[in-house]
């Protein structure tokens, strides 16, 4: 009887950002991997050439729902770089607050999903419960839970009211103990150690050659963070630490992100307390001809925007480079040689917007069998279950 292969994906009715991984396996071991992207390519670079500089801010805010602040942040900085403009101090602080709130909720989202992939649904529920609090904070500050629409070239569009600051700080303070509890619970768990330590290692040399960015590179011992390397916003005006770990495995990527959530909350609080008074907008009139680059640290790594102006009111060229574009190719270095039950979490560890892993098709060379995303998550969860039994772990 002829065999039929039904691949699940690349489209999924529930999530955005389709990508299609195809893993070649021999028995349990992954021997080859290829990825197809571009199912969601919307031609935003071209679209941006047809919008005015102000309109583009809103278009590129819709590149990603999770990084909805990072892209406008990089873009506005690129436009300001064309004319060497410094935005007012208050705008810098408010931009930083919004960007850090985004980092906190994005990392929590990833953290919860990573827990789900590993069969730790309690982690999923706790992380998303805390994320909800952060979204509430963002709603108080910007009026929106996502897609904050706070940015414009030259400054920000909405001010933060001084009466909103005490309740926000109170809320942020209340998150920290819960986060500490979650951090301790996760980092002390022996099963989680067995499941993630030494898995999917990205070496320091590979990290440099692939030009990996963000937590993916920082977990491999490469201390690279745009916020420290070329400070923007208010990052050089407050105290904060860059989180770097050395092993490059999945566990270290988890640790970097958990610690960064705590740093983000610290930065948000410090900015709110030191918020200077004054203007929030430099009122740009015309953009002169020239070229500008804006790069900032998004939750997943560096976002890079290049804008060229020819003196009209529209960008002549607008190049957007998202962090996953640099991080995703590292799968070649991390997945091959690992077992297929670990592939899910390794691919998820770079935080490629999790839907990617839902869209894997695994081709078993020997058995002509095709696994879909659900099978892979099941395989991953079963492995955790086996480890739990091995460690006599009480659920």
């Amino acid at each position, binding site marked *: 009887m002829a065999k039929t292969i039904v691949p699940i994906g690349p489209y999924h009715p529930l999530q955005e950002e389709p990508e299609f991984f195809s893993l070649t396996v021999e028995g349990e071991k992954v021997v080859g991997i290829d990825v197809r*992207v*571009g199912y969601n*390519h919307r*031609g935003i*670079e*071209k679209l941006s050439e047809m919008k005015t500089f102000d309109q583009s801010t809103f278009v590129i805010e819709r590149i990603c729902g999770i990084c909805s602040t990072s892209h406008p942040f990089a873009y506005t900085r690129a436009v300001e*770089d064309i004319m*060497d403009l410094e935005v007012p101090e208050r705008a810098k602080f408010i931009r930083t607050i919004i960007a850090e709130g985004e980092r906190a909720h994005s990392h929590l989202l990833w953290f919860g999903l990573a827990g789900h992939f590993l069969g730790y649904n309690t982690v999923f529920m706790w992380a998303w419960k805390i994320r909800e609090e952060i979204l509430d904070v963002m709603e108080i500050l910007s009026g929106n839970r996502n897609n904050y629409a706070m940015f414009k070239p030259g400054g920000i569009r909405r001010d933060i009211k001084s009466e909103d600051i005490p309740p926000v700080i109170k809320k942020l303070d209340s998150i920290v103990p819960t986060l500490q509890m979650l951090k301790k619970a996760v980092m002390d768990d022996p099963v989680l150690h067995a499941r993630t330590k030494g898995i999917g290692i990205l070496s320091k040399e*590979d990290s*440099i*050659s*692939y*030009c990996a*960015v963000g937590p993916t590179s920082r977990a491999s011992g490469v201390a*690279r963070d745009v916020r420290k*390397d*070329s*400070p923007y916003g208010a990052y050089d005006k407050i105290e904060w630490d860059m989180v770097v770990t050395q092993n490059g495995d999945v566990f270290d990527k988890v640790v970097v992100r958990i610690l960064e959530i705590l740093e983000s909350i610290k930065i948000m609080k410090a900015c709110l307390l030191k918020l200077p008074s004054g203007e929030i907008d430099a009122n740009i009139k015309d953009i002169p001809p020239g*070229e500008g*680059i804006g*790069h900032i640290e998004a939750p997943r790594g*560096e976002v*890079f925007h*290049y804008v*060229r102006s020819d003196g009209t009111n529209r960008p*002549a*060229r607008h*190049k957007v*480079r998202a962090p996953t*574009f*640099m991080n*995703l*190719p590292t799968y*070649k270095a991390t997945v091959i040689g690992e077992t297929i039950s670990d592939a899910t979490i390794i691919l998820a560890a770079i935080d490629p917007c999790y839907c990617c892993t839902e869209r894997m098709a695994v081709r078993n060379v020997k058995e002509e069998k095709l696994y879909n995303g659900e099978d892979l998550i099941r395989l991953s969860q079963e492995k955790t279950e086996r480890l739990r039994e091995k460690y006599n772990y009480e659920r």
Partner: protein
Amino acid sequence: MNRDDILKDINARFPLDIVDIFDKSPKRVYIEIKPVSLTRVAKYIFKDLGARFNTASGVDTRHYMEILYHFTIEDIGLLISLKVKLDKSKKLEIDSLAPIFEGANWIEREMHELLGINFKGHPDLRRLLLSDEWPEGVYPLRKDYKEWDKKAIRDRGV
């Protein structure tokens, strides 16, 4: 090395390769080089100066296809953009940087399909973003790209 030393050093090392240096601001430098010198200069900046490759952006201008290769030297926060200009009347091709560092692999594939630049020595120039049905030789990011081709199924949204 600080910023001035690096610029002096690049200037002294590649006197014949550099066409122009535009010192824009404390953190941004644009260096225009000859297309044939790209791998030599890029290798020096990446390997010896320890810079990180950010990305490359291809720009379609009237007479030239420009490619800007952006590098960041992280210790001092300096962003160096190497600019090459390819004459549009000739064949659009340039040496690939992917054999030197993996990070250039995807962006060159992207420029290959969107702007029609050929990267010599690239290990795998398959399509990255466009679908398989997209016609050969149509480059959507070029300025002369005709949108809304009434005959093409892709533009009717069917």
